[in-house]
């Protein structure tokens, strides 16, 4: 998958940024903003339709062609709902929290590259299809999204409600846990690209291969942690409705709720765009299309880029349609005990291989094979089940009392339900042997009540 380097003239480097004049910046910012809002409306509709198909339903199909305007209708409906500020809320923080959650979501998009340098129609101004780029682009995205955690923490805390507080706590612990795994998965990408700027990483993949091929484990770790980071199924523990009602936004209504919803879907697109940029070649055309010379020029790359993002979003929806929600302890265990150790081992493996490559000495092919074997072994060892401190003692068969806790519970695997109590007429009960342990404790009481 080597790409012909024919379009290097259109390649944005850091020199191409910071040269736009005022109205170009304003126009581009406005376009990114509109793109995000419209794409969010589309994604909500897309998710509902796809999940519906997976569940043999039809999904929203009334408002607009194919039901496309459904999300817009929902938004208008939300705007007409009462704006509730609970009595127990900390008012200022409660009102500011949705804004704190949505503003970082927008700002993070400033460095996402959507395409090469293009000419704005009807003018001869050339500008990259990216708002701006920083030498520390990816770090910038990580830092800005980490500010988004405050929206969650503060929303839950300021609501003054048990469910909201618990939800925000869970949610923030979840986001920070998976942020570590996410951050670690980028390290090997930077090693290969030699830069942290988004356009630089796209460029490095154009001269090399897409990083998903040499760095597949990093991509897998990123793909898992991006689901955890965005609080999506199967990791949507923060809004496990059976336990926590709505999670951190339980008390929110009207457009404040809509802002949280918008932030969540923008973050979804952001992590997808990040995955596409870091691992799937960014806006560059995928293989068969890249044979066409014009594929990486003009406005076509926007299409490829949005297509890649949509593929990730479909993946998110597919997960939601397929997998049940994980338990919180399983989820934290996956993050801390699997993803992080595996990432560290992988980073170390990659850096050893790369330093040997750089310093020379060993034949590259044998090196790759050895490294592959070692990494595979280490990966396999990470999945060896941890030794439990003390195995649960096996319940003796037949000892099971469904009412032991005061309320009926079903038997665990391996336990046997007691034989059903034989109901007999009161006069004959004296002679019947009992199998129910509870009755043996207080037979006289039972007899008295029955008598």
């Amino acid at each position: 998958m080597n790409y012909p380097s024919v379009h290097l003239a259109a390649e944005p480097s850091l020199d191409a940024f910071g040269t736009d004049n005022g109205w170009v910046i304003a126009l581009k910012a406005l376009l990114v903003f509109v793109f995000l809002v419209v794409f969010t409306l589309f994604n909500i509709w897309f998710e509902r339709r796809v999940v519906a198909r997976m569940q043999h339903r039809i999904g929203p199909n009334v408002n607009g062609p194919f039901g496309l305007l459904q999300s817009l209708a929902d938004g208008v409906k939300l705007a007409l709902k009462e704006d509730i500020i609970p009595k127990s809320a900390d008012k200022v923080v409660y009102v500011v929290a949705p804004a704190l959650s949505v503003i970082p979501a927008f700002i993070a998009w400033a460095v996402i590259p959507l395409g090469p340098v293009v000419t704005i129609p009807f003018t001869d101004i050339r500008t990259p299809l990216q708002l701006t780029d920083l030498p520390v682009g990816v770090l910038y995205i990580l830092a800005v999204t980490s500010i988004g955690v405050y929206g969650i923490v503060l929303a839950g805390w300021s609501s003054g409600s048990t469910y909201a507080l618990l939800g925000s706590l869970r949610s923030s612990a979840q986001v920070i846990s998976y942020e570590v795994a996410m951050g670690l998965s980028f390290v090997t990408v930077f090693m290969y690209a030699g830069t942290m700027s988004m356009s630089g990483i796209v460029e490095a993949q154009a001269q090399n291969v897409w990083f998903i091929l040499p760095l597949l484990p990093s991509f897998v770790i990123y793909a898992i942690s991006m689901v955890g980071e965005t609080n999506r199924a199967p990791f949507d523990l923060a809004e496990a409705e059976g336990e926590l009602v709505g999670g951190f936004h339980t008390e929110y209504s009207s457009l404040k709720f809509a802002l949280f919803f918008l932030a969540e879907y923008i973050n979804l697109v952001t992590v997808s765009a990040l995955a596409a940029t870091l691992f799937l070649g960014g806006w560059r055309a995928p293989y068969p299309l890249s044979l066409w010379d014009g594929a990486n020029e003009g406005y076509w790359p926007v299409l490829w880029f949005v297509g890649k993002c949509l593929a990730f979003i479909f993946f998110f929806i597919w997960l939601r349609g397929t997998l049940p929600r994980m338990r919180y302890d399983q989820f934290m265990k996956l993050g801390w005990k699997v993803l992080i150790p595996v990432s560290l081992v992988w980073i170390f493996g990659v850096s050893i291989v790369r330093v040997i490559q750089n310093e020379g000495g060993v034949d590259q092919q044998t090196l790759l094979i050895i490294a592959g074997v070692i990494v595979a072994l280490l990966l396999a060892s990470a999945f060896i089940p941890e030794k439990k401190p003390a195995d649960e003692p096996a319940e003796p068969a037949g000892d099971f009392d469904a009412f032991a806790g005061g309320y009926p519970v079903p038997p665990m695997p391996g336990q046997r339900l007691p034989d059903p109590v034989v109901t007999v007429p009161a006069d004959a009960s004296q002679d019947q042997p009992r199998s129910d342990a509870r009755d043996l404790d207080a037979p006289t009481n039972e007899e008295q009540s029955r008598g």
Partner: protein
Amino acid sequence: MDLDLYVPILAIGVLGAAFAFFSLAASWLSGPRRYNRARLDSYECGIEPTPQPIGGGRFQVKYFITAMLFIVFDIEIIFLYPFAVAFDSLGWFGLIEMGLFILTLVAAFAYVWRRGGLEWD
């Protein structure tokens, strides 16, 4: 390092903030407002709300340990980034340095793990 690069970030930040505060204002203006004592109580599945969140608002110490681990690993990450970017010019020396650094942190991580700091119930 060029501050011009930050002007577009400012631009989209202003747009996002304007949108957010417009929405906050709009939701206050466009919705109905009918006073209802029960509606302004915090949500508690229909029962009388408790005056304070559970446990007086306090919660498990595990969240604290998680946050502490998060900081430590975050710091590790921000050292790994310049290490990765400058990797090709650092050679074996840089790798050994980073190896020592990570080894120390892994020791701490293993300690937390053994002491049950990663267990959730």
